[in-house]
């Protein structure tokens, strides 16, 4: 029975992937990509990886699709001088994609069985970190450098989006509020955020011991903030506002400070002193959650569209 479900899931995923690739109409392709992200999340659940599933649904499905939809809406109706791709160019792209697929397929098929795993080692050292969720231990203790760079990448993406603002509007606020806010949207923006904020904080807090964590919690909080900005309940902040900049930088900065203090107190970069691992990790995660929430919300809100208030 579950095999039937798995086969159906894989068939849906393949069909949606083909649909996204061949669909001419951009909006339809993006909505299909959103559905693809949700189904991929289900696939991760079937592989017993709820942490990955949550991130996939939040970032891979929801977040990316919203960014693409906004980009599509911004481009829609503009005079686009599209240069038709040459046949040779199309063939080159197709060949490169096929080579990547074939390489990946080959790599998966030649994996040694049983696959080499570090899972027992990860579980064994779990007690030293004081955490209950081995995924969080990998992210913030064993492979903390990867996580640090990952969050910096989000900030770099935001710098890229912000730099699209015209010179005169630099430091100003993005424009997310429609000219007339529909009543249902305004209602939702009043009712949903209290629940959303509780759920977001819960996801961050429970991440130490169960599936959840900074990216998942940050996405929920960012969505609530965006909802309130779109309904005009709270103004979009000036991108030059110090408080916003501190919120954005706080997570990675705290991470770096604790990482360098590791030299003094624990004998190495990104090492936690004995017995303090869990409180330090929770502090880093709290700051990172705020940074991720602010960065994601500002990414969707886009570059400055209003002159900065002076």
């Amino acid at each position: 029975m579950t095999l039937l479900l798995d086969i159906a899931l894989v068939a849906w995923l393949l069909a949606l992937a083909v649909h996204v690739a061949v669909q001419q109409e951009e909006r339809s392709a993006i909505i299909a990509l959103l559905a693809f992200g949700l189904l991929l999340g289900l696939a991760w659940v079937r592989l017993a990886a709820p942490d990955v599933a949550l991130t996939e649904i939040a970032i891979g499905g929801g977040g990316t699709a919203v960014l693409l939809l906004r980009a599509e809406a911004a481009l829609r109706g503009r005079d686009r001088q599209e240069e038709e791709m040459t046949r040779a160019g199309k063939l080159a792209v197709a060949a490169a994609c096929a080579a990547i697929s074939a390489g990946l397929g080959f790599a998966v098929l030649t994996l040694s069985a049983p696959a080499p795993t570090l899972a027992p080692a990860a579980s064994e050292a779990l007690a030293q970190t004081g955490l209950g969720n081995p995924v969080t231990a990998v992210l913030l203790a064993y492979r903390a450098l990867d996580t640090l760079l990952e969050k910096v990448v989000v900030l770099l993406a935001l710098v890229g989006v912000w730099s699209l603002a015209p010179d005169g509007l630099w430091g100003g606020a993005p424009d997310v509020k429609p000219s007339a806010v529909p009543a249902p949207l305004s209602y939702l923006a009043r009712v949903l955020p209290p629940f959303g904020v509780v759920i977001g904080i819960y996801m961050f807090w429970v991440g130490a011991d169960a599936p959840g964590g900074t990216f998942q919690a940050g996405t929920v909080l960012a969505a609530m903030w965006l909802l309130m900005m779109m309904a005009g309940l709270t103004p979009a902040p000036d991108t030059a506002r110090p408080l916003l900049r501190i919120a954005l930088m706080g997570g990675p900065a705290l991470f770096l400070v604790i990482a360098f203090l590791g030299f003094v107190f624990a004998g190495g970069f990104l090492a936690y002193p004995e017995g303090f691992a869990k409180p330090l990790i929770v502090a880093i995660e709290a700051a990172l959650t705020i940074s991720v929430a602010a960065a994601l919300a500002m990414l969707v809100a886009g570059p400055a569209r209003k002159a900065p208030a002076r």
Partner: protein
Amino acid sequence: MSGLGDIVTVVLVTAGALLFLAGTLGLLRFPDTLSRLHAISKADNLGLGLIVIGLLPQAASLTGGLKPICVWLLAQLSAATASQLLARTIYRDPAEP
């Protein structure tokens, strides 16, 4: 207790799944966007509600049972808002497909 609970689960979850099937059929077959919205809202609200009530006898604890109810309420809130916003856009501008 568990026998009766299982019967309730099977009956209600089946009814919910049938509603989702009917809603999907409506989504695919109905001629215009407003009727399609109507069909899918039925599936979202009533179908999901039946499935949630059907799963309640299987809940291990009180909080375990409260969670799916909260999910249902939140899904109803977001589905109703999304339907209203979509319907409003079409009502204002019938040229949109």
